């Protein structure tokens, strides 16, 4: 009782961020035909960001971007005493669909918000909100997210594996019937070596041959690719 009162009095004279705010984070897939793998939504200290654009991806970011595996990033966040919600959509987030991650009160040290998920079908494309300072005043805030490339795998645009270092794209259901087959691969594609804004996919119109297994008509995109709505209560 006494402790709460003191906290309240401090808050009167200091920043409003010291109040216990709770956060709900809604993520919507805005794309025509891209699926998002399980999301990780984390409130974390500024020192624990997922990546820095222009520099090499961590091996845990690579796992997420190439195969949708967020377990490594989850460990990173746990080690940083972050508060995370993992896989709020309980599987893939389909085009147009939304999901809600309830972060609750992340604590005063977790001032930043990050969200990532792999984009399917891509080689190592992912959506990201990176290390954004959480708003502290109550209200509703909207952010548009762009597509990034982790720079860890060549964008050959053909079927393959999701393990780090495995060439090609993982194709889980329901992508199995939506992604092409027997593509010869984009010539000259290489891993870029640094995280950057994705240049987009080429794709082609042939689902059974051609250079790419990505369907150019339905599985290309323009930014933004996701909308995040943060509600502070």
């Amino acid at each position: 009782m006494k402790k709460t009162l003191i906290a309240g009095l401090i808050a009167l004279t200091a920043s409003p961020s010291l109040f216990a705010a709770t956060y709900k984070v809604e993520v919507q897939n805005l794309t025509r035909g891209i699926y998002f793998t399980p999301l990780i939504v984390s409130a974390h200290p500024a020192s624990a960001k997922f990546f820095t654009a222009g520099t090499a991806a961590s091996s845990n970011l690579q796992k997420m971007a190439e195969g949708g595996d967020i377990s490594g990033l989850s460990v990173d966040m746990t080690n940083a005493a972050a508060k995370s919600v993992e896989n709020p959509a309980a599987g893939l987030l389909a085009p147009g669909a939304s999901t809600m991650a309830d972060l609750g009160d992340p604590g005063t040290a977790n001032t930043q918000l990050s969200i990532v998920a792999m984009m399917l079908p891509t080689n190592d494309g992912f959506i990201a909100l990176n290390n954004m300072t959480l708003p502290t005043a109550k209200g509703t805030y909207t952010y548009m997210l762009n597509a990034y490339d982790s720079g860890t795998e060549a964008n050959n645009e053909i079927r393959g594996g999701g393990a780090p270092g495995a060439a090609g794209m993982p194709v889980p259901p329901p992508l199995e019937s939506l992604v092409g087959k027997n593509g010869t691969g984009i010539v000259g594609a290489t891993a870029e070596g640094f995280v950057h804004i994705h240049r987009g996919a080429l794709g082609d119109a042939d689902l059974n041959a051609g250079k790419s297994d990505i369907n150019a008509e339905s599985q290309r995109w323009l930014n933004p690719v996701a909308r995040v709505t943060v509600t502070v209560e």
Partner: protein
Amino acid sequence: MNKYCIGIATLMTGLFLSACGGDNDKKAEPMMSSSSMSMSSSVMSSSSMASSMPAKMPLKFSVAVTNLTSGQPLSPLALVLHNANYKAFEIGMAASVGLEKLAEGGDPTAFLAEADANKASILTTTGTGMLLPGMSMTLMTDISLYETDIAMLKLSLVSMPVNTNDAFTGISSIDLSKLAVGDVMTMDTVAYDAGTEKNTESAGTIPGPAAGGEGFNPMRDDTPSLVSMHSGVITKDDGLASSALNNTHRWDNPVARITITRLTP
């Protein structure tokens, strides 16, 4: 306990004013009006009359739209002023037939008729002719609203980039209630896909000058049949041999810039 402390913080700093919810707002309003009434006591009787039968207030907005694309004329602009009970479009939801007709053929008639038939709509208007690449056009709106309705006033505007199958651009339910006279609000729009026609890009399916093909067709053959962000056009220059489009018809977001200004009525 927490609640108590937040309450004090509100009074002390005002930092949480927006967070206090409807209750405090309702308390604040009568306080303000009663103090203004006591300052001019002679007007009291007439102003109490007015509060039981409030007058409408005239509002005027100009809405300027610039086409930012290189080769996509925008179909006649369709503008709707409305309250919260109308939605021009929403990502993840199916397009209305009116929006389908606008996004496939560029004709705003059915879209505006749908809005007119909706009790939530306050005013609809349309631009004259195409808005060509690089060009700007300004629509003017004059309305009169009760104060309670101004608090819910929203603007939606849509238009088709005509060298596409079923793309549209625009804004949905932009809040105008906080715009004071003289205030200006500028926003960039992105391209959406109505989800009502497959993006074949073939000559027969694109109504714009690049192809002169068919506009509206009631068949919905796109998957998913939902409004989404547009993925852009491929064009024959980027490997889609059957496309009637070339590199000049490509675009990136944003597609248009919209500037809303509240004017003196």
